[in-house]
């Protein structure tokens, strides 16, 4: 479903991703862990074409991210084509990034109405169902500022799901939450992962969550993938020294 091939990415002079290779199959949940600044967010942003890569290729469901093939040539995408591509990729951000001037339901229906041109009524019906699914039935008309952090993040997840994306990207979805509120967001994500139909790429610091729901765990450091493995392999018997050091610091 997602294939990342020898991706390199620099900001100005400094390279932040080095030859990243990663494959995620349909329905799989992959968790990415790693220290701050290791390039986890950057990788997700490249998959969503929020950043351009310097070399390598990223494929999402047989589409080359950022390019179109026609007449035997690769054409860079124009902005509106890139927009269409992003419709297939849902993203949940660390700071929720809900639109503060819109109610929960307006946040959720905005994308379907504007980018997918779904009728307002249908969009609202679907949004209502999603809100129920993330446990927020009854909060339709609350503004983000009237919701707790955990509730805001659940709205954000519903907003991404409303686009019916092929892949969901999560960038530290719980690290801006109060500890008491982390659980409710993880529960929603667990649900999603275990339904088996959603392909998920999750950057997280919640080792317990990764252990429980990930099909595979990726450890990144300094812009490289250091180690990939099943949760038990990577978390309990890491092969690399760097992974061990990180895990001992985090689990301390």
């Amino acid at each position, binding site marked *: 479903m997602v294939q990342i091939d020898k991706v390199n990415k620099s900001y100005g002079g400094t390279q932040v991703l080095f030859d990243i290779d990663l494959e995620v199959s349909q329905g799989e949940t992959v968790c990415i862990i790693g220290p701050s600044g290791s390039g986890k967010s950057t990788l997700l942003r490249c998959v969503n074409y*929020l950043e351009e890569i310097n070399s390598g290729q990223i494929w999402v469901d047989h589409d080359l991210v950022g390019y179109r093939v026609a007449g035997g040539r690769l054409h860079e995408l124009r*902005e509106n084509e890139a927009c269409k591509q992003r419709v297939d990729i849902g993203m949940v*951000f660390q700071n929720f990034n809900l*639109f503060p001037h819109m109610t929960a339901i307006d946040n959720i229906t905005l*994308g379907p109405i504007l980018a997918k041109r779904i009728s307002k009524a249908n969009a609202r019906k679907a949004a209502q169902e999603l809100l129920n699914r993330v446990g927020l039935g009854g909060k339709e008309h609350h*503004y983000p500022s009237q919701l707790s952090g955990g509730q805001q993040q659940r709205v954000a997840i519903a907003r991404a799901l409303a686009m019916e994306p092929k892949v969901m990207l999560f960038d530290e979805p719980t690290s801006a939450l109060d500890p008491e509120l982390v659980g409710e967001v993880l529960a929603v994500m667990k649900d999603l992962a275990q339904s088996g139909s959603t392909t998920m790429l999750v950057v997280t610091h919640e080792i317990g969550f990764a252990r429980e729901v990930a099909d595979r765990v990726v450890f990144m450091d300094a812009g490289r993938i250091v180690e990939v493995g099943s949760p038990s392999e990577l978390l309990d018997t890491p092969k690399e020294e760097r992974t061990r050091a990180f895990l001992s610091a985090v689990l301390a």
Partner: protein
Amino acid sequence: MSRDRADARRAIPARTRVTSRRGAGPPTTFEEHVMNKETPDTGVITQMERQVREEVDLSAKVVPVRHWGRGVLTVIVALIALQITWALATNEHIHWEVVASHLFSGSILNGLWVTLQLTALSLVISLVLAVIAAVLRMSKSKVVSGVSFAYVFFFRAIPLIVLLIFVGNLGLFVTELTLGIPFTEIVFFSIPVNQVFTPFVASVVGLSLAASAYMSEIVRAGLLSVNRGQYAAAMALGLDRGKTLRYIVIPQAMRVIIPPMGNEFITMLKMSALVSVIAGGDLLTAAQAISGVNYRTIELLIVATIWYIVVIIVVSVFQYFIERRTAEK
């Protein structure tokens, strides 16, 4: 927060209960006790101290901070205001009956109307131009952002009076407004320039160009003030640049844009007086025209000032409500 503090200050005396010397006589006085730093600090409050504290009743005696400075300031300000009012009201050089008789005179109200029209029209047009200039300025293309930069620089740098003279006298440069291919003979459409650029149109154009340059910097600051995460979230939903601006960024930028627009509106209102160089017929010009005949300069300037103040008050109230609405959520 300041109101909460004031409430708190008032509330404390009534509720605080600390024993005084006059209270149920503890062995040392309260002050000595509190001040006595020699008391060995055991780190644990002794039972005796506890009791002292609980029994002290100073409820009637809390002395709030006196802000002498504020009192003095109040008196000084009041005196100055009084003196200025007095000086203005009784000044032999100012004939208030002249002010009164002109305040609602036809030519003054006409001038006011022209000023309001000029200001309102220019405000709307310049706002649109400012948004365009600000968006172009943030374009990734060097050419596009360069054009916007040059536009803003040029129209901020050229004195308004010069701009107005040029725009108001376009006939100096071209006699016909022609749509065609430059440096060729091909012409699609042509109209005498003075027919299009009446003094009023020229005034609006000149004011709008100048104001849009100033405003674009404000709009740009507003657009930049919107969290980058909002752009990312909108893009991730598949919204294109235009929709992101329209539905996500501009509504949020309004909060930052509107307050300094107050300054700009007032500046524009005042600037509109400059259109007299191209025969604009605005409020201040009308006042000066009358004073040129009846030689009551000060009185007519006061008339104009009163009207400006009225307009500014009305707009400020309006702005206050818009700000409240954009800040609400």
